[in-house]
């Protein structure tokens, strides 16, 4: 792990100070890593349209994709997901993806790794991270296959969209100061398939997980009493954000639908002009020309629609899922606080009981027996109280840790969200500009051809 990592550990009471506030000027210092190629800004990662390994999504090319706004440290781990392949067994058919890692971190045995993983493996990793860090924000995974709009599980577009999302997921993990040093993450990136399977089985048992769930449900039912204001504000924000991002997702999908319908109609225009040109003599050439222009604009529109579907929609969708993640994280934090409050109450009750009971029976028993049973009881109570106090301390620690973790990860998440959504919208705007520029060129070439024609014949004055 590189040097000045963001300090999110529990012991620091003021963890947010460790994150540099003005990071706008941070860029990768290339001198430190001479084996990294610098490509010109291109769409390598977001534009993989083919199904095979020839895509340029090598870790090295990712260097341009990330603005290092939050981490002062240089990026020392690069992960890519590509090369989906289909596997057929007797029981099932599934897709695996190649996960390649390039890293200079010392805790890794070597500097390059290549493994194959399936969607289930990603799900496992996410679960492990959430379990270990209930109040940190784990980037969402693309959803499981849902029968929606006739998308087949092995449809090329679906697989490509999922691949991109899995790639983003792993990169978000790799960029996260805490997650990226997770042992589970390391194993995910490096272990051979067999190793991974056996490691997966070692997790906390099913029953203990059940036990945690029961406790969590109990705490949830009880509810939190004194939620700090900042977390209430967070919740309000998440509610509103969730609504907005869902709206944006819907609006964008609607735009795609409308554009597809527009495209359907436009596709008939070109052929109609071409048909017309067949009845004409003088007009045949300009009509054919117009037909060609309309057809070319159709192609551009088609590409534009695909771009929206492939690039903007998945990102918006991920942030819809993020909103749900945030809600879950806040809920878990609440539960931890509820648990702490419950234990505080229980301890106070116990202490109160001890105080009231200590007066009773003392005189009566003292004379009968050598050691007063009251003492025994007192002893027992003392023991119980100590246990509860220890428990409470742990709960308090857990709560404090959870709150601090959430607070700093919240700040981090907001920065990442801002970066992601900003670049998604900037990208969309650029594609729109490019679309219009291409169409503009098409029509200008038509005008030009007509101009040279007309001026040659001395027919029309264009001024």
């Amino acid at each position, binding site marked *: 792990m590189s040097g000045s990592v963001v300090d999110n550990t529990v012991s620091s009471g003021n963890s947010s100070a460790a994150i540099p506030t003005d990071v706008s000027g941070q860029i990768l210092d290339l001198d430190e890593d001479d084996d990294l190629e610098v490509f010109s800004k291109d769409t390598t990662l977001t534009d993989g349209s083919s199904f095979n390994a020839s895509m340029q999504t090598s870790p090295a090319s990712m260097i341009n994709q990330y603005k290092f706004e939050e981490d002062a440290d240089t990026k020392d781990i690069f992960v890519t997901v590509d090369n989906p392949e289909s596997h057929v067994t007797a029981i099932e058919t599934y897709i695996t993806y190649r996960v390649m890692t390039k890293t200079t971190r010392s805790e890794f045995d070597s500097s390059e790794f290549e493994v194959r993983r399936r969607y289930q493996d990603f799900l496992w990793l996410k679960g492990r991270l959430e379990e270990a860090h209930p109040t940190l924000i784990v980037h969402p995974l693309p959803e499981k296959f849902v029968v929606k709009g006739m998308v087949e599980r092995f449809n090329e577009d679906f697989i490509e969209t999922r691949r991109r999302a899995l790639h983003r997921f792993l990169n978000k993990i790799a960029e996260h100061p805490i997650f990226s040093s997770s042992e589970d993450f390391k194993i995910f990136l490096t272990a051979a398939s067999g190793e991974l399977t056996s490691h997966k089985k070692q997790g906390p048992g099913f029953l203990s997980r059940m036990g945690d769930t029961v406790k969590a449900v109990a705490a949830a039912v009880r509810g939190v009493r004194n939620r700090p204001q900042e977390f209430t504000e967070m919740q309000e*924000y998440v509610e*509103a*954000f969730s609504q*907005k991002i869902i*709206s*944006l997702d819907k*609006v964008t999908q*609607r*735009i795609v639908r*409308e*554009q597809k*319908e*527009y495209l*359907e*109609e*436009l596709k*008939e*225009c070109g052929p*109609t*002009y071409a*048909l*017309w040109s067949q*009845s*004409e003599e*003088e*007009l045949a050439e*300009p*009509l054919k020309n*117009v037909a060609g*222009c309309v057809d070319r*604009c159709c192609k551009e529109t088609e590409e534009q629609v695909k771009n929206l579907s492939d690039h903007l929609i998945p990102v918006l969708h991920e942030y819809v899922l993020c909103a749900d993640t945030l809600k879950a994280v806040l809920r878990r934090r609440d539960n931890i606080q509820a648990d702490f409050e419950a234990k505080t109450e229980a301890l106070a009750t116990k202490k109160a009981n001890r105080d009231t009971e200590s007066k009773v029976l003392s005189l009566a028993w003292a004379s009968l027996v050598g050691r007063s049973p009251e003492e025994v009881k007192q002893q027992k109570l003392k023991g119980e109280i100590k246990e509860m106090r220890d428990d409470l301390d742990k709960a308090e620690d857990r709560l404090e840790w959870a709150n601090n973790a959430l607070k700093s990860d919240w700040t981090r998440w907001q920065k990442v969200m*801002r970066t992601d*959504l*900003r670049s998604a*919208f*900037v990208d969309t*705007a*650029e594609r*729109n*500009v490019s*679309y*219009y*520029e291409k*169409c*503009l060129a098409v*029509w*200008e070439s*038509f*005008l030009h051809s*007509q101009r040279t024609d007309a001026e040659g014949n001395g*027919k*029309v004055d264009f001024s």
Partner: protein
Amino acid sequence: KQDASPPPRVPCKPMPTKNNLLDSRQTKEKRSFCMVEKGTSLLKKMEISVAEAEKRTGKNAVNMQETYTVYLIETRPVDAASEGTNPVPDSLWRRYSEFELLRNYLLVTYPFLVVPPLPEKRAEFVWHKLSADNMDPDFVERRRVGLENFLLRVASHPDLSSDKIFYSFLTEENGWKETVFETGFQAKADSRLKALNATFRVKNPDKRFAEMKHYGDELQSVISQLLRVRARAADRLYGVYKVHGNYGRVFSEWSAIEKEMGDGLQSAGHHMDAYAASVDDILEEEEHYADQLKEYLFYADALRAVCRKHELTQYELEMAAQDLTSKKQQREELATGTIRTFSLKGVTSKLFGQETPEQREAKLKMLETQIEEGEELVKERNAECEEFVKSAWVDIERFKEQKDHDLREALISYAIMQISMCKKGIQVWNNAKECFSKM
């Protein structure tokens, strides 16, 4: 009549109205789109425009209240405008039905000319946002432009421009209708049945006219199809742009809960609103293009009318010739006493015996007269036919050139519109991009 090479065409300048500014393609004020030949004597004298439209209510032929639109026709002597003084133009109001009457008169009176069409009576090929209501102000406005265009086309036609009825249409408000009816043009109109009959039975129409008619059919069919497709595409494009308005709303709401992102989002939202709003102008301009296509859709009809008239005159010639031939044959039979063809006369004569020499003499004499008359008729009709073919073909050639020129211009203006739309798109999205990068 027609010049060997047409004089250079100049875009017609509309008369100054209260909204009118420069004569340019960019003016929002809709202006006529025909290229007018300044060479006709009428246009050398006067400027013509349809300046305004107004709603009126009144009693119609069956004494019922109705609302209709009237259009103000303004005429002004050419010299006055160029001298710099701006006298009040002469003007009168006409309603659409009067334009129709004028055109019907022209159609009957000049069947060998491709008579310019009127703008459509009812809005067709509309896409959903555009109203199909005749009272809709946009429709009325487009019709005003179409009517002006019609008048300018007629005024710039070498033959039609000198018609007296046309002139009085422009200058005499009262009594014009009576004047038209007095010409008795309605009696000269060919019945549709007669025309249809001729189309089916004509044997030797001029090949060129047959081809022209076929071309007219094709032109009508393909322009209809184009207008339909275009209207549907316009509908869809409207949807695409308008949905972007939702981005504006959501960005605005979202910016309220964000701190650093707020400004960028808010201003990007404004650009999305602008983008959504821009489609209205874009589609309005496209309607203009559609109107240009529609004019030629209706012109196709006028072209076919000329071809049908040719078929009729040719047919009538053929009928007269056929009649003459049969009469000559009858004479021959009578003279030689042989009956070559089956005739009732032949049968009856066989049955009831030959007629007397006096009867035969009388018949022969009658036949001779008829044959003489028949030959005159054939000569006449032949001359008519030839004359028709000659004049009609000249006008068809003129029309072809006009059509090629106008439609090419229309395609060019369509391209210019597309370019303008693209430029607007580029601008909006560049602005949006700038705002997004400040998010």
